């Protein structure tokens, strides 16, 4: 629980930070101009801890920054060679476990996975490609759902609703069958704005708004202009 009446101090990579007691560490770091990478966390949504990229070392133990609450005197390591290598490895695994063909993907330039690949200098695939065949569902009027690109971050599961009902849900629990399923009837009722919201909440190109391709030229997209996280770090000058 965030205590908005209690400011505490803690430390990230030797920098003294202040935050509300109980604030998610990832959010607190952001407020202090420190970038901790994440693919599943969205400020305001309940933390999921599913992507593991926000792994940091808290008082000697590795923990996910999105699910860890800050407390007074906490000592956090974030930008270390070991943690960055771990993050890079996770990014590489996510890339090979999906069909992420950046050259023709509408999300290219706005894709957080791609942006993290660049930030952590993913140069060559170290792991074998899986080329999954999880299917594509293009039945809704406005949504194109490509499960082969899904990284199971569950952002859509947690956020996209229609009339109070969840449009996306985790389905087929149990190893290789696990996937994010879409309620086609509900998805078909989404408005233009809601469909755009679904596309925007997806960190990769698994949820696309139909009939919208490359309106913004490559080179003029969000991460074409500045690396992911640089807006947060700019607060520290």
């Amino acid at each position, binding site marked *: 629980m965030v205590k908005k009446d209690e400011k505490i101090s803690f430390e990230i990579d030797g920098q003294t930070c202040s935050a509300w007691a109980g604030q998610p560490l990832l959010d607190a770091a952001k407020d202090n101009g420190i970038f901790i990478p994440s693919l599943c966390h969205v400020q305001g949504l309940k933390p999921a801890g599913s992507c593991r990229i926000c792994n940091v070392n808290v008082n000697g133990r590795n923990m996910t920054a999105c699910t860890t609450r800050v407390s007074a005197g906490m000592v956090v390591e974030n930008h270390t060679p070991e943690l960055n290598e771990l993050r890079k490895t996770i990014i590489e695994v996510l890339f090979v476990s999906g069909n992420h063909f950046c050259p023709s993907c509408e999300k290219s330039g706005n894709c957080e996975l791609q942006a993290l690949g660049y930030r952590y200098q993913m140069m060559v695939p170290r792991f074998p490609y899986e080329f999954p065949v999880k299917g594509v569902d293009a039945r809704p009027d406005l949504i194109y759902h490509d499960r082969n690109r899904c990284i199971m971050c569950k952002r859509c599961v947690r956020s996209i609703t229609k009339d109070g009902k969840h449009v996306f849900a985790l389905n087929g629990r149990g190893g290789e069958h696990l996937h994010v399923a879409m309620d086609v009837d509900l998805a078909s009722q989404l408005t233009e704005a809601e469909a755009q919201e679904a596309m925007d909440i997806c960190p990769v190109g698994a949820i696309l708004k139909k009939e919208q*391709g*490359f309106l913004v030229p490559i080179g003029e997209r969000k991460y074409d202009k500045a690396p992911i996280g640089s807006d947060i770090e700019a607060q520290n000058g």
Partner: protein
Amino acid sequence: MTKKITIEPVTRVEGHGKVTIHLDDQNNVDYSRLHIVEFRGFERFVQGRPYWEAPVLVQRLCGICPVSHHLAAAKALDVIVGSGTGEGLTPTGEKMRRLMHYGQIFQSHSLHFFHLVSPDLLFGIDADPVIRNVIGVALEHKDLAVQGVMMRKFGQEIIRATAGKKIHGTGAIPGGINKHLSAQDKEAFLNGPDNFNIDQMIAWSQGVLEFFKDYYTRHQSFIDNFATFPSNHLSIVRKDGAMDLYHGVLRAVDDEGNKILDDVDYQDYDQYIEEEVRSWSYMKFPYLKSIGKSDGWYRVGPLARLNTCDFIPTPLAQAEFEEYKALTHGKPNHHCLHYHYARLIETLHSAEVMRDLLNDPDLMAGELVTTGTKINKGVGVIEAPRGTLFHHYEINEDDQITLANLIVSTTNNNEPMNQSVNQVAHSWMDGQPEITEPMMNAVEVAIRAYDPCLSCATHALGQMPLEISLFDAENNLLDSKRT
């Protein structure tokens, strides 16, 4: 005892190619084949993808002329999204695409002539491969080499300004374009310093044309007789018969210039053109249905375009066109090496078109995209640098591509290239006791004239990257040479 000569790989292809030449007991050529031996599969793996991805996805077919695939796919999707063909776009949409396309023609033709062809002309096709390459050109003909580099760079910059990137851009989208030309780019193209502006490009285009014509005067017999044979020719032309490399109607002429097809809407291309599959090549053999498989094949590309069009709608290129047509008394030109001549006239034409477009205010402002009522099938055809390029897509009600058929320029020229290889093999190798490097280069010179995506790496590397092997009738290796 018969022998088989294999030239493999024929490099710088989209995939791999090789030439086999079969000799009989007297070392005379029995028959020859140009094989394309790698399967690409784009037509299959775009199936299921959303249609708006096609222009960006399929252009990955090629790193040399991706703009052609990008625009052909976009033109097909214009039809699907209800924007119609050609005139259905906004003036900005159509003119930006035209500028992109003519920039592509300009850079591709320049690359081909200066980097790949000029070594053959400057040093001779039987010269030592150590000097018969682009480095040799740079060392001995510095001005020409610099012009080649600068002309290609200019075309690439035009592509960047219109498509967003020099290679694999994203400018054309279904129904139009996603950007205007910036004032900064326009100024640079029109008035750039250090000879990097459109007026200089036109002057250099004229210069290289004069260079070729001078060469032709001194080597007319060789150029006119090298791999010359009659054929049909096909391209799109503007409705009034003018050369138009971006949009038009299908026209085909026979070897005498009689029209086989005229004013044909390319949406119906499959009523007029069919593709034959032969077991020894992954590249199909297109032919005109009305004539049939054996005689319905045709040439595409610069030579064909100058045979099908009635005139060129820019003054400098038109004057050159008239001089060129006079060589064959207005009849179709069937000389294989005149592809180079025709290509340089098109280079000049492209520069003139770019100049006119750069001065057009529609590129700087105006609506970018149009839409209409969606349909499930669209065909896009464009004159790529190497010839007529067909893209045909069909989609389902969920916006997924269900069918893609691509007939690329090189495919159209498949049978003509085979004919050319055969001609050269006969005239250079018949009865020869030894197969030499110049003989193999002569085969590649014939292929190279078409500027296929089969152009050889010979000149770039300074060494023929070919392997020649002699086999007896039982396929036993008799001799092998890597030159």
